[in-house]
């Protein structure tokens, strides 16, 4: 007897074994350490933490090792771990103006309080392969002349706010919704949207952001400020009536300055798109800020014409764990449904044949 996908049990065991072998690669080469991934692939770690929605460099590095460098798989591993963790508090809002910055740039002012600090960046590197890195035992990079670090300074958009030129986002002090506990319900509010975008796929986010730049929901952005560095996380435990610090996390924050809202009664003001990501993750934070602003269209009374402005379209499709799962499920057997379709299409064929015959008989008679 022949039946497809028989002996599933054994096949799965073998597949797992083969995967473990594939992941390890040639045993002539030393095994990759989690600490090496954490230390030397920090950008990959940052992406996995951001989209995995869990700030833990070591576990993110472990996930990357376990997934053989497949970052979406690593994000999935981290998410599936995160979901089992208890949730004991929401933090107090991060004070990013207190950030210990390693990088800070503004495209809107040439110079500004706190200054511009390029920090470590791929910008302005020439993308030429550095064959020296092929060899092992490279010399350590020479230390920078002095340990450059910007002093904590106010955010650029804060300054515009003070001048009355930037729409002020009010702290409603409303309870923070948690999209991982309560499913999204449309229409959403900005808190829910920002949560969904923060864990959304970097590639999808960038494509949508790009589409707004090319005219599909254009919102005239300027990179008001991008800052990367360490910020303290504080929580206010229920039994205390004051906040206590938990520790530092590295984050990337981007605030876009976008074109105005205003009316006859209200003076024109710039609006803002906001992006935040764990670790050093500039591309994601910038893309998120553009998409966040595009999704504010309805609140700001703009006409909704493009995909990046449609919240259901963006929010229901930006999660790569959901998307990858549903796309890959096509690999599962579908032969029962396919059989239904086969039966249907044969029935249609049979009917067509009968009709054709009837038609030719009629023709002959005529």
């Amino acid at each position, binding site marked *: 007897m022949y039946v497809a996908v028989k002996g599933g049990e054994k096949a799965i065991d073998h597949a797992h074994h083969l995967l473990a072998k594939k992941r390890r690669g040639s045993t002539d080469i030393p095994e990759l350490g989690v600490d090496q991934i954490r230390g030397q692939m920090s950008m990959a770690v940052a992406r996995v933490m951001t989209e995995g929605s869990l700030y833990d460099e070591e576990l993110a590095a472990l996930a990357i090792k376990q997934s053989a460098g497949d970052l979406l798989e690593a994000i999935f591993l981290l998410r599936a771990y995160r979901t089992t963790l208890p949730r004991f508090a929401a933090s107090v809002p991060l004070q990013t103006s207190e950030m210990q910055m390693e990088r800070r740039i503004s495209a809107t002012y040439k110079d500004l309080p706190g200054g511009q600090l390029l920090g470590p960046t791929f910008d302005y590197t020439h993308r030429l392969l550095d064959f020296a890195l092929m060899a092992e035992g490279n010399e350590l990079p020479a230390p920078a002349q002095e340990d450059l670090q910007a002093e904590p300074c106010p955010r650029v958009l804060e300054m515009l706010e003070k001048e009355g030129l930037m729409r002020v986002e009010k702290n409603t002090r409303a309870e923070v919704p948690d999209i991982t506990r309560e499913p999204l319900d*449309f229409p959403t509010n900005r808190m829910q949207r920002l949560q969904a975008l923060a864990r959304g796929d970097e590639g999808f986010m960038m494509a949508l952001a790009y589409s707004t730049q090319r005219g599909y929901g254009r919102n005239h952005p300027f990179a008001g400020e991008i800052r990367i560095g360490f910020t303290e996380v504080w929580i206010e435990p229920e039994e205390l009536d004051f906040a206590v610090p938990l520790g530092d996390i590295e984050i990337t924050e981007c605030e876009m300055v976008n074109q105005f809202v205003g009316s006859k009664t209200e003076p024109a003001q710039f609006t803002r798109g906001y992006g935040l990501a764990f670790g050093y993750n500039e591309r994601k934070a910038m893309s998120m800020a553009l998409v966040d602003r595009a999704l504010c269209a309805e609140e700001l009374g703009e006409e909704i014409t493009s995909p990046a402005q449609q919240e259901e379209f963006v929010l229901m499709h930006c999660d790569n764990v959901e998307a990858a799962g549903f796309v890959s499920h096509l690999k599962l057997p*579908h032969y029962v449904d396919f059989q239904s379709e086969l039966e249907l299409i044969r029935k249609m064929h049979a009917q067509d044949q009968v009709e054709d015959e009837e038609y030719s008989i009629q023709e002959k008679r005529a």
Partner: protein
Amino acid sequence: MMTESEKQVQQGLTEGYNFAYLDEQTKRMIRRGLLKAVAIPGYQVPFGGREMPLPYGWGTGGMQVTAAVLGEQDVLKVIDQGADDTTNAVSIRRFFSRTAGVQTTERTEAATIIQTRHRIPEAELKKDQIMVYQVPIPEPLRFIEPSDSETKTMHALNDYGVMHVKLYEDIAKYGHIATAYAYPVLVDDRYVMDPSPIPKFDNPKLDVSPALMLFGAGREKRLYAVPPYTRVSSLDFDDHPFEIQKWDHSCAICGSDHSYLDEIIVDDSGTREFVCSDTDYCNQRVAQQEKQ
């Protein structure tokens, strides 16, 4: 006294996870959602779906429902395409053996909970049995109206005209309704429901079934249910009544002429054979024939 984790190790369960993987708070949240779903048959209840260690689209909704209703005494059967030995069914069955240590079975009668993808077993279900369906797209109106806010309103207003128009257009174009699986049903004369992608062959089994039917959509974060002995009718027209699939063949293994058959291509020239999609039903028939 053994600690909880020592007990787990002794039973060969995965360390560090709660019984059936999900924590008790989450399971309680899901059970509350299920109670609401049972109280309003066919209505889609949003729930705080969790990430599961299996990919979305591979049965995470069904698994969350199973985890929420599973007890230590339960006997679990998992099928995919009607078969117990398809890879994903094996994987999900193993998951619950590992995380809950419950007894599993391939026998439909012996199971208290049956998690399924794409089929309802041929053997008649009994009361006290729970069917758990894996659902990819819970919204029957989704392919007519992509927006969730819109379809929610349509359900609330009992506004199902578009669905009938779609079925009518099928008839106008093809001569009959061109939906062969995930065929929409009306539950308890109120809500139009997607029965999950079961072939329409299985739709009549939903009607007044003594078993409890629970549906879980993980990615879309929706639960819905058909309580025991509830009227479930497949949408149709008086002059185009609902019909189920029929085969001119019988099962090549057990000879059944009334079960849902899978088509198998057995050689390079495309010779076809037909066998029961429900492997347990087929095996039971063969065993009975051997006895006689």
